[in-house]
């Protein structure tokens, strides 16, 4: 069990946002956190890597309470791909090398350089390595963020809407990469997402959040139209195409919605 969340609660200035959150994540699996806008998906991720302090409950990574670790120690155990990163005038190589920050004391070692080089090759970023990040497209930036989290060499990856600003090809590529890394290296991934179809296709487990708490959890194959309807408030059909489940939303009547 790489990650165990036990009865976690969190509130922004005493207004409860999350409550009674408990779940576990295993190595080699991707868990996707789903739910409507503002339900607390990002907040939950930030509680896991202690960017936010939960008001109640425990987060255990490999059996150790995250609250008892300092920030660098946490960064050695949890890689984090934030929803946005700001492009500055540094090269892609240096932007990725930053992920070695928790391991670097004073000087960048040869090992750090080799790891970055390896990650760059793995993600097919060779041709961009010495280009400035502030001249790159959204898809390229997202790959660099992913590479930065990968070179942290952690057993747990948190990804906050890794595909939210990407086109179809980049979405597929990034999610495929994440899945491959998780399976090949036997690490665990937890990501938030809005696209249910991508979730069904790339994740192993799901977690539905509704009103700040867990509405349902399990294998993605078990997601039913009824669940989606009660979480998102919209009727759907789930079809199968070439073995993949596909979620089709039903029309919303405008008068009904208003």
């Amino acid at each position, binding site marked *: 069990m790489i990650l165990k969340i036990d009865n976690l609660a969190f509130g922004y200035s005493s207004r409860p946002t999350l409550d009674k959150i408990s779940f576990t994540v295993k190595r080699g699996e991707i868990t996707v956190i789903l739910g409507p806008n503002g339900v607390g998906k990002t907040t939950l991720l930030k509680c896991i*890597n202690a*960017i936010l302090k939960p008001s109640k409950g425990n987060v255990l990574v490999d059996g150790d309470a995250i609250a008892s670790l300092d*920030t*660098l*120690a*946490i*960064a*050695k155990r*949890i*890689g*984090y*791909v*934030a*929803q*946005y*990163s*700001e492009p*500055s*005038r*540094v*090269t892609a*190589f*240096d*932007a990725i090398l*930053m*992920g070695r*920050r*928790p391991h*670097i004391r*004073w000087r960048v070692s*040869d090992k750090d*350089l*080799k*790891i*970055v*080089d*390896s*990650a*760059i*090759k*793995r993600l097919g970023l060779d041709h961009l*390595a*010495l280009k*400035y990040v*502030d001249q790159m497209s959204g898809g390229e930036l997202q790959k660099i*963020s992913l590479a*930065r*989290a*990968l*070179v*942290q*060499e*952690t*057993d747990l990856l*948190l990804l*906050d809407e890794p595909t939210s600003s990407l086109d179809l090809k980049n979405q597929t590529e990034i999610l495929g990469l994440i899945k491959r*890394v998780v399976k090949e*290296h036997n*690490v665990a991934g937890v990501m938030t997402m809005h696209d249910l179809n991508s979730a069904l296709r790339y994740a192993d487990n799901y977690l539905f959040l509704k009103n700040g708490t867990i509405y349902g959890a399990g294998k993605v194959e078990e997601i039913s139209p009824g669940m989606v309807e009660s979480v998102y408030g919209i009727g759907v059909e789930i079809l199968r195409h070439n073995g993949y489940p596909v979620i089709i939303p039903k029309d919303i009547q405008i008068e009904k919605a208003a």
Partner: protein
Amino acid sequence: MHFNDGGISRAYTAYIVRKTGFTLAMAGILAMMLILAISLGAVNIPFADVVKTLAGASVTRQFDIIVWNIRLPQALTAIVAGAGLAVSGAVMQSVLKNPLGSPFTLGISHAAAFGAAFSVMVMGSGSMASSFSDAVTITSPYVTTLAAFFFSMLAAGIITLVARIRNASPEVMVLTGVALGSLFTAATMLLQFFADDVQLSAMVFWTFGDVARTSWKELGFIALVTLVSLVFFLANAWNYNAADAGDETARGIGVRVERVRLMGMVMASLVSSVIIAFVGIIGFVGLVAPHMVRRLIGDDHRFLLPATAATGGVLLLASDTVARLILSPHILPVSVLTSFLGAPVFIYLIIKGYRR
């Protein structure tokens, strides 16, 4: 997770060498500029004699006095002040996520000017140290310096305190700085309105930043503070890079962004306050030098900071040399020149569009 199939990228190594080379080249230009600056003046000293005199081999007694007592301390003060102001500008820009960050734009300079005016008027130090102040006598320059330092640190303290309350967000720091700048300017004007002729001229003289004001002892102190802060900033280079990539990303790699911001602001304010207190207000070096270097070698603080220090030194030393010569035999305070040069560069940067 293991990525062990990578090598050391030769292209990256070459790139690092290039960036290091830029800093070394700048340092080389600085050394040449130093010899040139010492050589030029009312009495011209040949380059060879400058080098000999610096090496301790006395050429003539006159050269010894000119070099060691007048031009060298002034040139070194220009270098140290230029480097310190430029580096603190670069750090403030990163920490505040604002291309306009500098001691000048954050009201720290204005607070120092108020402190000087306050000491002249209220504490009766009545006069000031200036290289061209026959009319204005020096009674207690240290009181003025201390007052300037006190008020600039007070401004920096208020900025960081407000930032602390509002979670060290960049906008809060910048806005507080702007508000404080206009507050201190207003307070200075009030003092000036009620000042008599002698006091008024002392106040105005103080605001002309002039690197000829310092003695060896004062230079040593400024150099020490600048050096310590430079080491501190370099040790934090990775943290500033991480903060540039966004708060969330930085936290994800274990950087405590708020703390890095506050400490960066405190150190940058400290070093610029010390410099301003001793040499007066020198605008734009803290703004222009970092932006020039950013354009040439990018935002990576591992290279940006040392290169900015060298460039700031070159800029201020060159400006000071020109200021000494341009209206000879009249000697202009360097701040007049930096403002003349700085404003067009500043507008150029705005039109060309800055990133960040």
